């Protein structure tokens, strides 16, 4: 029974992708006909630092199994230093979710530049695999949140 559920588990992952790099990388990966996990639903943001804590928490508490935040490599931000701020925000979010015991491993930050189409496919596929191993988010069976 347990195995059957696991087999059928289809992770839902939300990705907040920076318009200037990772989103373009996703585009590149797609037009290069790379194999990319369909588990990831993309939300395009203008900068990784746009991803407010509430955005992530809303996504998580409404049932996403995994959340990926992706931006430009440090030093390459379109706006100069947005991703450095994003990094700090992510650190805080991770610390809070970890201290609350909220499976913070479902949250992931990564840097992918516009030319790294293959890296994009790699990251998405391995993150999907990781979430599939973790199983469905415990939020999804709670009706009393």
């Amino acid at each position, binding site marked *: 029974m347990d195995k059957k559920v696991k087999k059928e588990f289809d992770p839902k992952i939300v990705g907040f992708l920076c318009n200037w790099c990772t989103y373009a990388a996703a585009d590149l990966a797609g037009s290069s006909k790379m194999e990319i996990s369909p588990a990831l639903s993309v939300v395009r943001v203008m900068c990784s630092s746009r991803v407010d804590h*509430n955005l992530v928490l809303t996504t998580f508490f409404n049932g996403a199994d995994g959340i990926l935040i992706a931006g430009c490599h440090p030093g390459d931000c379109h706006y100069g230093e947005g991703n450095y701020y994003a990094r700090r925000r*992510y650190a805080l979010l991770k610390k809070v979710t970890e201290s609350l015991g909220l499976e913070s491993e479902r949250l992931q930050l990564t840097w992918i530049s516009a030319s790294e189409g293959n890296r994009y496919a790699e990251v998405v596929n391995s993150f999907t695999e990781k979430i599939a191993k973790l199983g469905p988010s415990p939020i999804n069976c709670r009706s009393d949140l």
Partner: protein
Amino acid sequence: MNDTERSAARMRSPEGIRGSLHDFLKIAVDKGAVDSVLAPVKVPAENSYAWILMNDPAVIESASPVAPVMPVQGAKALKSLTRKGKGESRILAVMRPCEIRAGIELMKLNQVHFDNIVLVSYDCPGAVPFQDYVKDPGFSEESFGKMIASGRPGEENIKPACGICTEFSIVDSDIHFGYFGVDEGSAFVIPVSEQGAELLDAIGLDRDAKIADWESEISSIRDKRTKKRTETLSAAGERIKGLDGLINAFRKCIGCHNCMSVCPICYCRQCYFDSEVSKKDPDFIFEIAEKRGAMAFPRDKVMFHAGRMTHMSLSCVSCGFCTDACPTGIPVAEIFSYMADITQPTFEYIAGKNNGEPLPLRKFEKKELPLVHEIVKSAEGEEGSDE
């Protein structure tokens, strides 16, 4: 601030610290060192206190600078006066250490401007829980009076947040009144900032007292408190950990958002959690309810508190107003203080310090702080892309 040796003035009054502070307010206004005073005054019905901005000597006569309760965070009163920049008149504000620290955080958020404000703090014995005071003002006044007379911080009949407070004494104010462990009826008037020292000179208070004994008394009390705080908060952390713990902790939450509206740090004109965007479409809620088998209302209780933790725990000064305001008795302050004591050290930040440091989320390091780096290094990949 001069760290090498602090010189202080000494004031005496038969009414102890309350008398000394009261005298100080009157002298400061009398001598024209400040234009007006912001301090708590007992309301006519005698069942609460209110922040009053006053310059009439008769009104100042009725001020109670050391009030037993904290109905409104002093930083909020300060914000009302200075949120658009410095005002015309010079104000002397007497506030508890946690109120001053919250004011400093608000200053970093551009909501309070200190240019024309002289902050006066005092050794705080703690405050009576507001509900207790409202129920029986007589008893509360009496027990608080005893607390002050003892010259030590209170142990009983104070807010839980006060019982584990480690910042009960000198903070980054302008002038501090120290009286813990000082002989009865006497208080040290300690200039903390240059502005404070100038004011003491202007009103002619000689600074010839030695305060080493007071300082060691404060640090010994602080050590005990720190121990108690760590114990209490780590126990709280254990209780709330995990989804079950969190749901249990906030099960009684009625979603009134009182904790947020009394919080000095939550200054946003509109909070995401009050906005239309946060209210999900009924169809969506039905869909989730069907998937999960049931649905409890109000929704998103845990999310609301987790969201607030990410938004204000870095600036939390553990003033305890949230617990005071919770109608269902959730120990909100304890939970938020637990989080604050984790997030602030991560960014090597101490809320309520006025040392020119901006808020942690408003700055960054290219090579991040060790604890931050520890969290983000997996994100940066093996190549370690930060320079």
